[in-house]
């Protein structure tokens, strides 16, 4: 019987045919954790599961990205524990301060492969669907069990197909596609489901990562882009992984990309989405360009193109945090960084930065931030009454330039 991409991947990882609704125990190709969760994960492994040696250290990965470099004594101590644990267990996929955000590195460093299952102790692990992997976020205990056994269990999700057609207009980004989708299905629209993106052939790997990253904001268990030439350029795709006629989809949503305009999610909800032009004039104090959702070279290029030869508005601070060391290096070598600096932006070390409100850009009471991140919940980036607007790098750059939320198409 025909299967969705998720059913194919999970069947392969389970070693038996599974269908939506089944509980399945699957082999995990890569389990990953991060500095902020590693200390409690180590406690679960050593103190609760009494693990002495991990069976598959080559299938584990640890990233120091959530507070990198350490901001205080507890975070520094936690990172010391993570480093010692990786060394003791022989986890070679250990990425220390400055290497970048876990999700970016999982793909950039080929730690996850098309057609495999990857679990991470971070909700944006759905990002790996960009290369046709089944990536999903889990909590400490689940990931600890994946470290301890090389396997995990899950309920095979139903799949919603999202059919994309047409091409994006200039200054419109993959972020706008996913914000449009959020406005249609809302923050719980894909709960327990997988999303399969069809017709994404015109989108770059970077854009696909933006799409898949944000599927978790709709409650999805996984978001997978149908593999094609772009996927194969990155990594080999198994022959068995392909769209099958007759696969059962719970719903089909169609989106014409040429209809989409620059959009913004208003605080404090990710699904409170309006056109950027409708927010024209909303003052911002800080513009944050970065995160696993939109901190890649493509995003830095888009921002630099808008800021070129100009200067950000007085009273606005613009913080650029590349998603990885490789992005930072590439942006340095091709002059993008110089263009952003000339425009008045400042640069932070690759990592999660201010997105989770822990350091390097925390918002004070009443402040307004425009961020290219993925969440605008109250208190997410600092004071509970600080406001976070979310959108693309293009809207972020146009907003930094004017000091008020600005549709990038309004910039000459």
């Amino acid at each position, binding site marked *: 019987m025909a299967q969705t991409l998720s059913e194919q991947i999970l069947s392969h990882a389970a070693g038996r045919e599974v269908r939506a609704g089944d509980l399945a125990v699957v082999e995990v190709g890569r389990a990953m954790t991060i500095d902020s969760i590693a200390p409690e994960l180590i406690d679960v492994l050593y103190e609760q599961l009494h693990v002495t040696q991990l069976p598959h250290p080559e299938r584990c990965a640890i990233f120091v990205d959530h507070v990198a470099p350490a901001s205080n004594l507890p975070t520094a101590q936690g990172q010391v524990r993570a480093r010692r644990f990786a060394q003791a267990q022989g986890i070679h996929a250990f990425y220390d301060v400055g290497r970048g955000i876990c999700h970016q590195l999982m793909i950039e460093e080929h730690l996850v492969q098309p057609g495999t299952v990857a679990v991470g102790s971070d909700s944006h692990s759905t990002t790996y669907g960009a290369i046709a992997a089944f990536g999903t*976020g889990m909590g400490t205990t689940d990931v600890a*069990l994946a470290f301890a056994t090389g396997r995990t269990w899950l309920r095979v999700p139903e799949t919603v197909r999202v059919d994309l057609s047409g091409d994006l207009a200039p200054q419109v980004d993959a972020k706008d596609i996913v914000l449009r989708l959020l406005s249609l299905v809302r923050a719980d629209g894909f709960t327990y489901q997988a999303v399969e993106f069809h017709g994404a052939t015109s989108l770059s790997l970077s854009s696909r990562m933006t799409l898949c990253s944000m599927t978790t904001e709709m409650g999805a268990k996984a978001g997978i882009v149908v593999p094609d030439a772009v996927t194969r350029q990155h990594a080999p795709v198994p022959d068995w992984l392909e769209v099958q006629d007759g696969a059962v989809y719970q719903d089909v949503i169609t989106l014409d990309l040429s209809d989409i305009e620059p959009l913004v999610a208003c605080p404090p909800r990710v699904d409170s989405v309006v056109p950027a032009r409708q927010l024209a004039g909303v003052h911002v104090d800080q513009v944050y360009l970065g995160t696993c959702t939109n901190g890649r070279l493509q995003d830095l290029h888009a921002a630099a193109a808008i800021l070129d030869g100009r200067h950000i508005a007085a009273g606005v601070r613009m913080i650029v945090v590349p998603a990885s060391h490789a992005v930072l290096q590439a942006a340095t070598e091709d002059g993008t960084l110089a263009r952003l600096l000339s425009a008045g932006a400042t640069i932070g070390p690759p990592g999660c930065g201010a997105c989770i409100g822990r350091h390097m850009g925390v918002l004070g009471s009443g402040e307004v931030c425009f961020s290219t991140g993925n969440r605008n919940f109250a208190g997410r980036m600092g004071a509970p009454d600080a406001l976070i607007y979310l959108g693309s790098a293009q809207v972020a750059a146009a907003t930094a330039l004017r000091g008020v939320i600005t549709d990038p198409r309004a910039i000459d």
Partner: protein
Amino acid sequence: MNRIWLFGDDVDTDQIIPGRYSPYMTSEDALVQHAFIEHRPDFAPNVRPGDVIVAGSNFGCGSSREYAPRALQKCGIAAIIAPSFARIFFRNAINLGIPLFVADLTQQVSDGQAAHLDPADACLTTLDGCIELPRPPAFVQQIQAEGGIVAYYQRYHRFPEEQTPHTW
């Protein structure tokens, strides 16, 4: 009698516990003081073991942080009742052995109302009587009976696996 803490729709994990108050940034011991610290500052000082959370849809959306359900567990919350849960929170709570019930009681109960819940009976008792709660799927009940997924795994040396489709 304990009490009900009533919340609306889409309670995200940043509301349950902001990332700045994670054990990583502070300490595990401080977790209990920081539950709902900004969203509902009266919660942590007044919550008592056995209290029940009744909420709207999509409870626990957002981050995968397991310290969000763990904070509620450490406060002694007897159960969380909501018409739907965000999937990672749902898993985390089951893994930790926190009773969850999928039911919409937001129109039936009020904040601060006296109530008692015995998870084994799947009944929320108020002065008006018993509100029966739908029991979770069998495999969830099994994990919860062991007190969480770690204890379950240690006892059975396997993960829950069923081939028959079910819904919740």
